[in-house]
């Protein structure tokens, strides 16, 4: 807040990009997202202070929305880590740090045991002939091949161990399946192969789940909730139902509770909460109308009220004022300013510098995917790089004043830099 009521938590923080904050709620480190050769986001380090309003500004194509998508899990970065509230969002569980020798032995053993056990059972089950040696050799060759393939991948040997063990499990299942279902013993090989595939698939799926990034909805459940640049309201649901959808941990959203109608009391509480928020956001009159009948500005209000229904810790607003008329802008701004009072953190993308100056405590400036400046709005507004990036480097000079050779050099330099970046990316 711009008032001087309490001590500013960001006082004394240096005005340089990537500066550490006293109490960061979000820490992004080395986040890189490129589409082919085009680098959309390349954030070396950014910390977002808890309980204040941070504005993310920058010219069109600066990567603000992409960065938003990366933070909230709606897009995935090629590199980097994100920490929210001390929790890493890029892997659900830490991969155990095994040393090279240990992981090689365990990985190779796991896969060997898996495949050879599978091959052995397969050989025993197939009583047509005695091809056990063939199966064992096949199992061995496949295991070594898979091992060589994943050896140098991150977490590769461990995942191989998981794959091997789950293949063994899958083969056991396959045998059971084979004995139970196969019309004749001719079918054993086929059902067994199905067991291998299912077991291996489940194993890899489980591993990817356990070590992969948290999906967007889980990040939202943790309390980081976003809105969209193109407002998303559910047009064919009533305004009230749009609000109710935001409530977390609803009993009635589980199949059996829904069927046996054990959600009615909780629904009443949710409705009461929704009504309070609708009142605050001046939408009570539209309560029972389809959300599709709302105006653009009202939709922005509804989307934001829906986000508040989730009891968020961090509210991420992507251009909340875009397309909203001035009267509504003022009421939207008031809602945003109120949020930090109860400890909520706000991050928002905005183009209108007046809005940014009015409500933000801290401003982060992006250009060409990088963070080029950070600081309080009063300082950022004066920053030459910000003015350059927003208005163009030579906005206050007339064409005649410009030195053409100097300008050409500048452009060349820019192009070189871009090429280098593209090459770096391709090298990876």
């Amino acid at each position, binding site marked *: 807040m711009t008032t001087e009521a309490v001590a500013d938590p960001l006082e004394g923080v240096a005005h340089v990009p990537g500066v550490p904050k006293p109490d960061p709620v979000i820490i992004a480190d080395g986040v890189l997202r490129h589409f082919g050769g085009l680098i959309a986001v390349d954030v070396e380090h950014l910390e977002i202070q808890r309980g204040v309003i941070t504005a993310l500004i920058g010219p069109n194509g600066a990567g603000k929305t992409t960065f938003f998508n990366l933070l909230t899990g709606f897009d995935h970065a090629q590199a980097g880590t994100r920490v929210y509230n001390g929790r890493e969002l890029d892997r659900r569980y830490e991969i155990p740090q095994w040393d090279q020798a240990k992981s090689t032995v365990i990985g190779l053993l796991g896969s060997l045991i898996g495949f050879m056990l599978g091959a052995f059972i397969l050989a025993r089950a197939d009583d047509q002939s005695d091809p056990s040696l063939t199966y064992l050799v096949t199992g061995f060759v496949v295991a070594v091949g898979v091992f060589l393939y994943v050896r140098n991948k991150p977490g590769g040997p461990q995942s191989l161990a998981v794959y091997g063990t789950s293949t063994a499990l899958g083969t056991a299942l396959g045998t059971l399946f084979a004995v139970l279902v196969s019309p004749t013993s001719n079918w054993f090989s086929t059902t067994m192969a199905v067991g291998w595939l299912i077991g291996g698939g489940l194993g890899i799926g489980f591993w990817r789940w356990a070590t992969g990034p948290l999906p967007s*909805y889980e990040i939202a459940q943790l309390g980081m909730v976003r809105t*969209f640049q193109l*407002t998303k309201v559910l047009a*064919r649901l009533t305004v009230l139902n749009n609000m109710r959808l935001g409530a977390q941990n609803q009993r009635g959203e589980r*199949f059996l509770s829904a069927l046996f109608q054990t959600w009615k009391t909780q629904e009443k509480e949710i409705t009461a909460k929704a009504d309070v928020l609708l009142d605050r956001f001046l939408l009570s009159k539209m309560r029972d109308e*389809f959300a599709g009948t709302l105006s653009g500005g009202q939709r922005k209000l509804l989307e934001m009220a829906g986000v508040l229904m989730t009891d968020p810790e961090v509210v991420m607003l992507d251009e909340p004022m875009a397309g909203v008329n001035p009267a509504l802008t003022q009421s939207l701004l008031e809602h945003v300013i109120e949020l930090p009072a109860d400890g909520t953190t706000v991050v928002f993308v905005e183009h209108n510098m007046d809005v940014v100056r009015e409500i933000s405590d801290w401003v982060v400036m992006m250009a060409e995917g990088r963070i080029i400046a950070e600081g309080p709005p009063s300082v950022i507004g004066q920053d030459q790089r910000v003015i350059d990036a927003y208005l163009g480097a030579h906005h206050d000079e007339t064409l005649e004043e410009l030195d053409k050779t100097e300008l050409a050099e500048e452009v060349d330099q820019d192009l070189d830099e871009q090429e280098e970046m593209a090459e770096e990316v391709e090298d990876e």
Partner: protein
Amino acid sequence: MNWSDIISNALTAAVALNAAWFALAGIGLNVHFGYTGLLNFGQIGFAAIGAYGVGVSVTYFGWNIWIGMLVGILMAVVLALLLGLPTLRLRADYLAIVTIAAAEIIRLVARSVALRNFSGGSNGINGFSSQFYELSPFSASESYKIGPFFFSSGRLLFVTAVTWVLVVLAVGMVWLLMRSPWGRVLRSIKEDEDAVRALGKSAYSYKLQSLILGGVLGGIAGMMFAIGTATVQPDNFQPPQTFFIWAAMIIGGVGKVWGPVVGSMIFWALLSLTENILRPMASANYSVFGIFDFNTIMEGVQIGQIRFMLVGFGLLLLMVFRPQGLFGDKNEMALDDN
């Protein structure tokens, strides 16, 4: 032409077994498409897997028919998982492609020569339904006439009645579910998945649940069809059937609880009506006002196709004049998505 017979036949068709199992499969499809927005073009595959589940359980494994029905339901769940797990993370079209292919794969595998002992090949499976009819209170050899409705045997009356009871139960279940918060999430997913994810709900998990629920209803429908005809014929489960179920659902109204039920009654009544009106025209020297003989332009064997053309034309008119179906809400449909 005997109009009272024609009307009576049409009314009978509206409540016959075909209409009943179509209604059940249509309710499932409505859960998929009408509420969740899933494009399932292989509902007949779920019906087939249900039918084969019960048929194979009884004839090949020699199990009790009730266990067989449980197996059929379980197989429908497995099929839904198999189709849904890999595709529901992707765009909606992938599910459409996979379901239409899977339905054909099931039919072709079941009718393959290699599996003749198991699923009966192209002859299908017979003789598994007697246990079901032991419960019938009606006489198997008698025919029944109830008002305008006619049932050729007590068995047919019994299985039809049971299927309609199942339809009513399914309607009740879907009604309860769709007005609950669970249904609210499904309807929201149909509108905008990302908005649902942004509010902390796993769209993937809900889509999977919806696919399973609708698939199981499709499986039960196929089961009742198989029991009612006392046979599982692979070629009863051809792709066009899926689209007839779609047509029935659209006639009634997509996303409305009673839509598929009324839709399939109308669909089958229309087919019967057109058939019974066209047939005497084609066979006898029947002319309109003595100036035009119908048998000069069509023969009896063509009637099957012509009635579908007429029903298709009717659907076309419906789409032009009442795109929301009979039960739909035009205002709701007119809302834009942005």
